[in-house]
């Protein structure tokens, strides 16, 4: 299993390198000019020359690439300080990172208890590793560690790329994670219930709705919910329930805890739902199919023939087998959620990486563009590996690879 992970990491690295090269070359091939706008103005020639010099835009292409690459992976700043503010200081991130860390530690805990490893060293290993993982997670969450790579400065004059991205990352995490959790919590039970009540009215309606949701582009859903549930709702009923722009109220910091929660919810609901809807459709269809397959399986028949009560049969035997393929599905869906986030953030003005990306693309701000693409790519690689590990935990057939 360990060697498998190493292999996957290496492949992931190769993919990322290829990705960076392709995007870089494309930008260069387009005559990629952050300076294009300036070039239209003949009086800017001096500034153009200066910036060209400064940003190394006149060097040969491959040299530019390697310079970029070298900088990209070089740490610029590592210290323990009042880092939390600097690193995550921008809008509303503070809540997200610790949550992710705790979730990660929790997932690991669940995983270790689900896995059935029969080796004698397992129990002590599990105990120690759990202590270690939780300690690290809590320490990181509370730490004041500052760390950054020298990703350069944005061509739009927006400041260091690293800060921009990580400032925006928390917002995207918040949105994406909520969407994923919503999709899982709603989609999976829906699919299971559809399978148990196959061919019922509920099942047929659910299937049709899934098809429609699956066939609708996410920007339609986003715009639609925005119009229906916010603007028109307000127009018709005078109730301003959901917000459609931004992530939090300007007065956020001054609000009470309860009011803050309310504010978060009111801002988060519509965009998260928009992203989640398509995933809900996919997950429920998939779970339905998986559950049906399990329900007609031979081993379920064996379980019934042994005299096991129906509830135990479903909960113990059917469910675990039916849930296994979802792991693969989710790992494939991560890319979709990220894509959805890009579009949704633009529509809802959500200050996340997606919106940052669109702004950077427009201006061909290539340090930012490269950094975002690489971050997303790296995120996907990591998620896929995590999914593989999870799959191994759930399905013993895969473990002895």
């Amino acid at each position: 299993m360990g060697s498998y992970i190493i292999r996957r990491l290496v492949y992931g690295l190769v993919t990322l390198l290829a990705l960076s090269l392709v995007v870089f070359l494309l930008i260069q091939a387009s005559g990629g000019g952050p300076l294009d706008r300036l070039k239209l103005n003949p009086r800017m020639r001096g500034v153009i020359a200066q910036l060209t010099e400064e940003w190394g835009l006149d060097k040969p292409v491959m040299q530019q690439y390697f310079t970029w690459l070298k900088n990209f992976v070089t740490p610029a700043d590592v210290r323990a300080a009042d880092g939390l503010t600097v690193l995550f200081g921008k809008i509303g991130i503070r809540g997200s990172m610790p949550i992710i860390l705790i979730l990660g530690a929790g997932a690991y805990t669940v995983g270790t208890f689900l896995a059935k490893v029969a080796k004698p060293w397992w129990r002590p290993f599990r105990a120690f590793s759990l202590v270690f993982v939780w300690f690290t997670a809590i320490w990181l969450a509370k730490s004041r560690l500052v760390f950054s790579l020298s990703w350069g400065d944005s061509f739009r004059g927006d400041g260091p790329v690293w800060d921009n991205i990580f400032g925006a990352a928390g917002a995207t995490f918040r949105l994406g994670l909520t969407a994923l959790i919503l999709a899982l919590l709603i989609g999976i039970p829906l699919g299971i219930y559809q399978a148990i009540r196959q061919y019922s009215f509920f099942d047929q309606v659910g299937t049709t709705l899934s098809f429609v949701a699956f066939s609708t582009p996410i920007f339609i859903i986003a715009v639609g919910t925005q119009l229906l549930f916010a603007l028109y709702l307000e127009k018709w009923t005078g109730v301003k329930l959901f917000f459609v722009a931004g992530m939090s109220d300007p007065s956020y910091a001054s609000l009470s805890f309860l009011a803050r929660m309310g504010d978060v919810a009111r801002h988060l609901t519509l965009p998260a739902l928009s992203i989640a809807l398509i995933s809900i459709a996919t997950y429920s269809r998939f779970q339905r199919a998986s559950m049906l397959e399990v329900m007609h399986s031979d081993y379920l028949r064996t379980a019934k023939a042994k005299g096991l009560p129906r509830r135990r049969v479903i909960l113990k035997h059917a469910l675990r087998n039916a849930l296994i393929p979802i792991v693969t599905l989710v790992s494939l869906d991560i890319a979709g959620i990220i894509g959805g986030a890009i579009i949704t953030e633009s529509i809802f003005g959500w200050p996340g990486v997606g919106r940052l990306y669109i702004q950077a693309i427009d201006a061909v701000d290539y340090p930012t563009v490269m950094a975002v693409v690489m971050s997303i790519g790296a995120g996907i690689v990591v998620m896929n590996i995590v999914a593989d590990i999870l799959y191994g935990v759930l399905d013993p057939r895969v473990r002895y690879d």
Partner: protein
Amino acid sequence: MSIKDLRTYFTTEEGVVRAVDGVSFDIAPGERRGVVGESGSGKSVTAMSIMRLIEPPAGEIVTGTIEFQGENLLALREDDMQEIRGAKIAMIFQDPMTSLNPVYTIGDQLMETIMLHQHVNKHDARKIAADALGDVQIPEPMTVLDDYPHQFSGGMRQRVMIAMGLSCNPDLLIADEPTTALDVTTQAQIMDLMLKLAADRGTAVMLITHDLGVVAGFCDTVQVMYAGGIVESGKAQNLFSDPQHPYTWGLLGSMTRLDESHTERLHSVRGAPPSLINPPRGCRFNPRCDFAKDICRETYPALRDSGNDGQLAACHFATELDLKLLTIGEASRS
């Protein structure tokens, strides 16, 4: 066990499939009864009906009684039936590769039944499970308990299934084509094992198969099923040497035999199995029968005693056809 007039129907798009249509037979304690027939003859459905594993709304046991240890199984509440399944009547299935849950250890699946029916704690259950594995001649049972099904071959998995079936000492074991998915050598081993275990414990066995050879080596009595009904039943040796029903005779004739002339063409029963939605009128075998007369197309023949130590055959001409004397060639000319 005494089954009377069992009828199990399935509702499909094309109509009602009468998979089991009026089946009655008995199984005595310790008896090893073979149930033989083509695919679609209703043998598996009969077994599933006994276990009450037929799922509504598609399938339904329409009528009949199954007397078992003083109770009618078809009238029991589901809870009570669950207590019987696995404990008093156990069933093992055809494909060992898919009959075990791949995500749980073998020990887990064995102990599950044991703890449920014998009300013992985990530790004792483990011991019982290991003993059961030993009985089916699996080496190193204690290690095997912690292994997963995919680590074993088909033969081994089927042994595990048998162990699971017998672990709570049932009075009746129903085996639905237990060796069909295995290679011939393993087949023989498994059948020998089952024979020994059943004989030792006095377990009655209902062996469902389409392989007459397997039946010959294992069963005391045999019943032949066709299109949802029993067409012949009796002691194994009698049936094989002196079949009374044309279908049985056809089946036996289609087997290759070492003592036959090998210049003859292999005979098969002509035609195809009938539709169970719209079965032929009268005797269901009549379209394919070499001896069919008008009465066969009109009236359904009930099982009648054809002498020979309780041998029953569902044919109007059961005692009149002296089937064992006719060779294939002669039959097609009569």
